[in-house]
């Protein structure tokens, strides 16, 4: 029903130049999942509450359910599919994932804050993770994994 009114959007997706046809207000989440087949980003609420669809837009976490795809033209979008597996060891050990539905979003925010140690001067990990609702872990497994990774990083610096 949207073929009357589609537009081609070009952006960089996980480091690769990408073109996709979208309707003007298609959500980035739908574009990623259904048009581009990247199903790692999950839809948990469709209202920007749960964070399961967290991706990076020009390096900053956003909820892909609240981004119109046309607004990412010319931008860098990174999804869970871009996260190197070896960076997840601490979270695997700490029990950061149970059912896994919130997990891709959790991992995106966690990796972002691990890449930005300066944030720890002003923010607690719990505050920064508050945009990712998890119903299984009670958050300890997640927080422990992040803090463990941070300790490992700071000790290897």
């Amino acid at each position, binding site marked *: *029903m*949207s073929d009357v009114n589609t537009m081609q959007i070009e952006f960089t997706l996980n480091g690769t130049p990408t073109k996709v046809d979208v309707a003007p207000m298609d959500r980035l989440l739908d574009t990623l*999942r259904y048009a581009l*087949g990247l*199903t*790692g*980003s*999950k*839809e*948990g*609420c*469709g*209202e920007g*509450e*749960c964070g*399961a669809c967290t991706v990076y837009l020009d390096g900053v976490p956003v909820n892909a359910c609240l981004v119109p795809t046309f607004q990412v033209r010319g931008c860098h979008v990174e*999804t*869970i*599919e871009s*996260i190197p*597996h070896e960076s*997840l060891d601490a*979270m*695997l*050990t*700490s*029990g*950061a*994932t*149970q*059912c*896994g*539905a*919130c*997990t*891709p979003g959790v*991992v995106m925010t966690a990796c972002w804050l691990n890449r930005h140690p300066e944030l720890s001067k002003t923010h*607690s*990990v*719990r*505050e920064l*993770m*508050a*945009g*990712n*609702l*998890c*119903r*299984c*872990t*009670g*958050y*300890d*497994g*997640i*927080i422990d994994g992040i803090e463990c990774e941070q300790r490992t990083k700071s000790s290897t610096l």
Partner: protein
Amino acid sequence: MRRLEGISKLTGQMQYVDDIHVEGCLWGMTVRSPSPRGRIREIRFGNAVDWSQCVVVDHRDIPGPNEVFLIERDQPVLASDYTRHIHEPVVLIAHESREVCRAAVADVQVIVDEEPAALEYRVLPKPEEVQRGNDNVLKTLKIEKGDVEGALANAAHVVEGVYETGAQEHVYIETQGMIAWVEDGVVITKGSMQCPYYVVNALKHALAREESGVRVIQAPTGGGFGGKEDYPSHLALHAALLALKANRPVKMIYERSEDMAATTKRHPSRVRHRSGFDAQGKLVAQDIDVAIDGGAYVTLSPVVLSRGIIHAGGPYACEHVRINGRTVLTNSVPYGAFRGFGAPQTLFALERHMDVCALAMDMDPVELRRINLIRDGQTTATGQVINDGTDRAAILDKAASLIGLKSKCDEHASFNATHPYLRRGTGIAVFFHGAGFTGSGEVALKSRVRIAGLPDGRVEVLTSSTEMGQGALTVFTTLAADRLGLEPKDIIVAEPDTARVPNSGPTVASRTAMVVGRLVERACDDLQQRVGLDDGARGDVVRDAIAMWHRNNEGKALYGEAIYEKPPGINWDDTNYTGDAYGTFAWAAYAAEVEIDLRTFSARVTDFVAVQEIGSVINETLARGQIQGGVVQGIGWALLEECVQERGAMKNCQLTNYIIPTSDDVPPIRVVFLENPYEYGAQGAKGIGELPMDGPGPAIANAIAQAIGVSADVLPLTPERLMTMMDSAHV
């Protein structure tokens, strides 16, 4: 062992039902009732969409009885001429485009001649609201031991109390979803679920098919908590009906608001206590009345009520006990299974009541509990003799000392006396949770597990028990590997596909590791016997024997098998509700420290300690994760999560307005395991999935009551409710 499917989840590679691409699939959606009760006069289709391009299903398309097969068959698959709750499914629509499908659903009007709805379970219905029997009561149950009235008459103290809890929404992060298609005449459904064989039974019944004509596959399931126990049967039926009519695959994925509005919730409850004590504070009588709101159909309410009343007397020794329970029909969206299954409601009442009793008798709440805790040789309310050697007082003392129940008392008192608006307090709750199906339930289930020996010497675990985050996959792998002395890589856990796996029962009731896990071990033993080994054989010997068997029996399948057997000495009388309600109980004491801001009346948990005896711990990380997650769900239920009801339906069905805890709302949850192996559980384990839901409510309510002197007798203790309680406490 680390979670086996962990990396696939952490990297987003796990394919949940909405992630599975099916060629030629239609989107299916549901038209729902706008009324809590009434006769459906007409279904009006508008002209906003091209209906010739839509597949439309109503009750006339159901090949078999229009009934969802469960305990009773009172619930229709699709409402035909009568509706009993808002959001009841009436018509199904499928279309290639999800967008068009949405527009089509919005273009259908269900016209209902409304009749008076029963919306209040706590009072008798008006005559015009009666829809079942003469009082809308769906089921009553009773436990009776000794002479309650006599004991109350002679008691030194009698303390009464009334306690209420609200509905709770599961908020599994993956919403309900199902795909259905027909292959070689077999109806196949694949989706998010806890109990594949429940779905099989529902499909067989309403589609009038033999078991061979249906097949159910569990897709990776993004959380369940009981919410995917019975509801997936509805969704599977809906998707299957659309797929049969369309002759194409159909995918139904609920959006969050639909999921919250239309699917089950935890039963609201009201529990009355009348407790008698002797002069020393020994419990001599418990008179308990439990009422739960069942919603519009029977669903699982009778068994929720059953678990509720069995736990209502708590882990205390009392000779004279009477517990009356009833579940009442209302024209609300049916309530259903939710972690704890009735026990969190009755244990909240009991453990809040124990603090009320302590205050009334001027006793220390810990001391009151300690002197009444069941000791080995004493009996529960149903007369079950407890004889497991667990030191229950040690559990209580451990939790009390870790939270600082005594040590922080003075500190909090002086803080509270000087701070202008912050108040601190601590509270404790001690409780138990029966693992596995209640009473003769496990016997009736006849759960079966198979272990296949593969030609290359590896083994495959075949069960219908599902991984939904709790760690079944990892635990089964551990159990089989340990039992056979194999490496985890030599163990495959089969996808729960009813075409391949036997019925190991539903994935509910904290039974998977303990009961099904034990069957995995026994099936491993059986496999060893079948290849000519004894139980002690391990490792290469096993692998070689399996491979050898295949060389000698080419083309044949090798299975070890185990069927549930009741542990010796377990007897349950379902008529009189007496005897051994559960094979075993896990025991726990949880303690909370809270801080209340009197400017805003909001309470927050600042420390939480969970001490429990759960048999043996199979996997420390997984077990701790279960406890921490359950506690945080319990904190949500205690303080934040309120289903705002309007005409029997949830009004705040968005995550913006139904508030669950974030990482910033909860403290680290301190977990302590005390181990006392249970002979009939896998590796000595008891069930733990539900246990952590029981303790936070009363521990937090007790802490709040201690800090600010309110009744704290209703959950959730939202700021608005605390404000009202403070008003009535200080008049």
